[in-house]
């Protein structure tokens, strides 16, 4: 008798596992990368949607940038991509080319998705081969965030569109007056290309490595100079933080100026999250990344998109959610431009008065500083770039550790990067 009961129990357990797996399917999954501020606001916006649309519940999946893409690729292999996917400019074409995203054109035609208030160029940034695969959630630009409170107290002012030499001078001055050091964007992949754009070059062209040995020497020379003059942070701190995490950036994380940076190479929409994560009483300022030629380096970019998975079973409903994020003023009153200035012009206008001082700063930064003084957004990097950027990080660690000179680093970079691209 006991045997029979235990057998039945096991069978019941297996059945329950299958049933729970099937039940979970009724929820709509939505995935994004981000920070604490974004997680809270997005969750609140989703709650509002559930309130207004009875029966729709969400299973939100949030990750840090670095883990997000690994998780997403794995989900795609398992045929279980989230219904709504936060997508990046860098990865869009990979996902479109593999037919993983839904073409939204039919939904635009039948009115489920209203893109009429979105600038055509921005609609285009989410399009490929005549189809629309991604809806821009906001616009941003590369932004140097800095500890304004610290600099103000020491009488140092930052001007927009700094050249490299001006940036060096500030870094040196800050170090001498306060002991705070500088982190030239370790782990922020786009810095390399940004710097090269200032020289009239680019890191990749048509999917191939196009940086020259001189380019690499120039870029790695920045770090060498900083280390030699003492104002660049030591490589030690890179091992202690989660790269790309706002909350753990050495500008706001740490207790000893010798291991902290006065500035951080981030994106304009991250000002809010950085300000929220900063210690009490620290005001964060925003300016452009330094470059030999700021107008050539700088660009505006769709900060992120929402896409709809072709593997999902609730595509119609997913498109409605995307439309909600794009066109609902109520929703954007919760999100408050954390993902960048809303792409729909009427929503941007309606939300503008509600934005706090930080977001006002971001808007004037985008409209008054970057827009009039920028060039076209660079093409998305080739797939192999992930490995090239890992190589760059490794070389920067060695440079800051002092085990390699900038010229050796450049030669090593050219050899290894060429090998990676040819693999």
């Amino acid at each position, binding site marked *: 008798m006991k045997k*029979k009961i235990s*057998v039945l129990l*096991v069978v019941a357990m297996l059945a329950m596992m299958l049933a729970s797996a099937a039940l979970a399917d009724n929820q709509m999954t939505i995935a994004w990368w981000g920070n604490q501020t974004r997680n809270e606001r997005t969750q609140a916006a989703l709650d509002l949607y559930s309130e207004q649309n009875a029966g729709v519940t969400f299973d939100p999946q949030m990750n840090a940038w670095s883990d997000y893409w690994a998780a997403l690729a794995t989900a795609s292999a398992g045929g279980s991509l989230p219904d709504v996917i936060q997508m990046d400019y860098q990865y869009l074409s990979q996902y479109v080319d593999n037919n993983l995203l839904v073409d939204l054109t039919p939904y635009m035609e039948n009115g489920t998705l209203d893109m009429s208030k979105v600038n055509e160029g921005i609609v285009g940034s989410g399009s490929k081969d005549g189809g629309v695969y991604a809806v821009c959630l906001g616009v941003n630009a590369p932004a140097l965030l800095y500890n304004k409170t610290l600099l103000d107290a020491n009488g140092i002012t930052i001007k927009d569109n700094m050249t490299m030499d001006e940036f060096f001078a500030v870094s040196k001055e800050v170090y001498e007056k306060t002991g705070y050091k500088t982190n030239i964007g370790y782990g922020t992949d786009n810095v390399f290309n940004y710097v090269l754009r200032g020289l009239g070059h680019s890191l990749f062209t048509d999917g191939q490595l196009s940086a020259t040995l001189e380019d690499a020497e120039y870029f790695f020379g920045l770090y060498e100079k900083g280390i030699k003059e003492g104002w660049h942070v*030591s490589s*030690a*701190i890179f*091992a202690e933080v989660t790269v790309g995490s706002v909350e753990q950036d050495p500008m706001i994380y740490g207790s*000893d100026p010798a291991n902290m940076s006065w500035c951080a190479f981030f994106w304009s929409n991250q000002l809010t999250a950085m300000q929220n994560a900063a210690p009490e009483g620290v005001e964060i300022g925003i300016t452009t990344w330094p470059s030999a030629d700021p107008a050539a380096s700088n660009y505006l970019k769709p900060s992120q998109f929402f896409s709809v998975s072709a593997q999902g079973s609730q595509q119609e409903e997913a498109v409605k959610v995307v439309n909600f994020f794009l066109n609902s003023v109520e929703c954007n009153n919760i999100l408050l431009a954390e993902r960048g200035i809303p792409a729909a012009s009427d929503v941007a206008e309606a939300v503008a008065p509600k934005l706090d001082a930080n977001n006002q700063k971001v808007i004037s930064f985008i409209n008054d500083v970057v827009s009039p003084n920028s060039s076209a957004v660079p093409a998305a990097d080739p797939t192999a770039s992930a490995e090239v950027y890992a190589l760059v990080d490794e070389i920067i660690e060695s440079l800051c550790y002092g085990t390699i000179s900038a010229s050796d680093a450049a030669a090593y970079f050219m050899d290894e990067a060429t090998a990676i691209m040819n693999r």
Partner: protein
Amino acid sequence: MSQTQRGTRPKRRLTIGQWLNQEHVAGVVCTSPFIIGFLLFLVVPMILSGYYSFCDYDILSAPEWVGLKNFINIFTSDAKFVKSIGVTFYFALVSVPLRLIFALIVAMILLRNTKLTGLYRSAYYLPSIIGGSVAVAILWKRMFAIDGTINVLLQSIGIDSHFAWLGNTKTAIWTLIVLAVWQFGSSMLIFLSSLKQIPETLYEAARVDGASSPRQFFSITLPLLTPTIFFNLVMQMINGFLAFTQCYIITQGKPMNSTLFYTVYMYQQAFEFKHTGYASALAWVMLLIVGAFTGVLFLTKRFWVYDEGA
């Protein structure tokens, strides 16, 4: 089966209850969760990874057969492969013996029966349960940070330490080794049970002959423990080669790949660089290396492991 048994009972169909009550049905059903899991999560993925190792595969698009290309690249043009093998061997060869020595010492101390022995044994076993967790890894990372607990403790005893344990190529690997050694509990339990089985009469005889404590240890305890040491060594070595979580959370291979464990490099290739086919090939190379290493250990067995039958 009862249907085929002659004469004793009339032939009839079994009710569901009777059918379930049979020995072999119960056996199969009760082991099925494991068997299903084993097939789905181990055998199928292994077969797939075997196939992918001969393909260009980036997860997003369909795999493309390339023959031996991945294996050739591993052995001819991958400096990180060599580096990560070196790091992994260093980690396993240092941390496992240290852990075993530590486990043995603690086991010998806990062998004596006092009222609190049970408590101590549980307490020392605890790190084995929690030590592999993500939470402890994050704790470890904070402890060894420049402004972390270790430096603060050093400062409190008068050493002005601002040393970057995780940021230095020489010390970063040691933070991982210390964490591994700290998880000595399961080896300790196995040692404990073996120690208890050593007959007391041997020690009595030794004492009568005037053998000192160290002499007793080296002439009685250690030789009789060699089968246990061997078992622990093989199991822990395999675990050591496959260590992942601690490195992935604490150092991510930094600084400058000085802590790049083989498994973490494999993960990078598979999920960060999207060379999943290449990573599968790396996995199979690792399987061969671990297999060969274990084989060598077994070959050395007859030179140092005490065999009671002999």
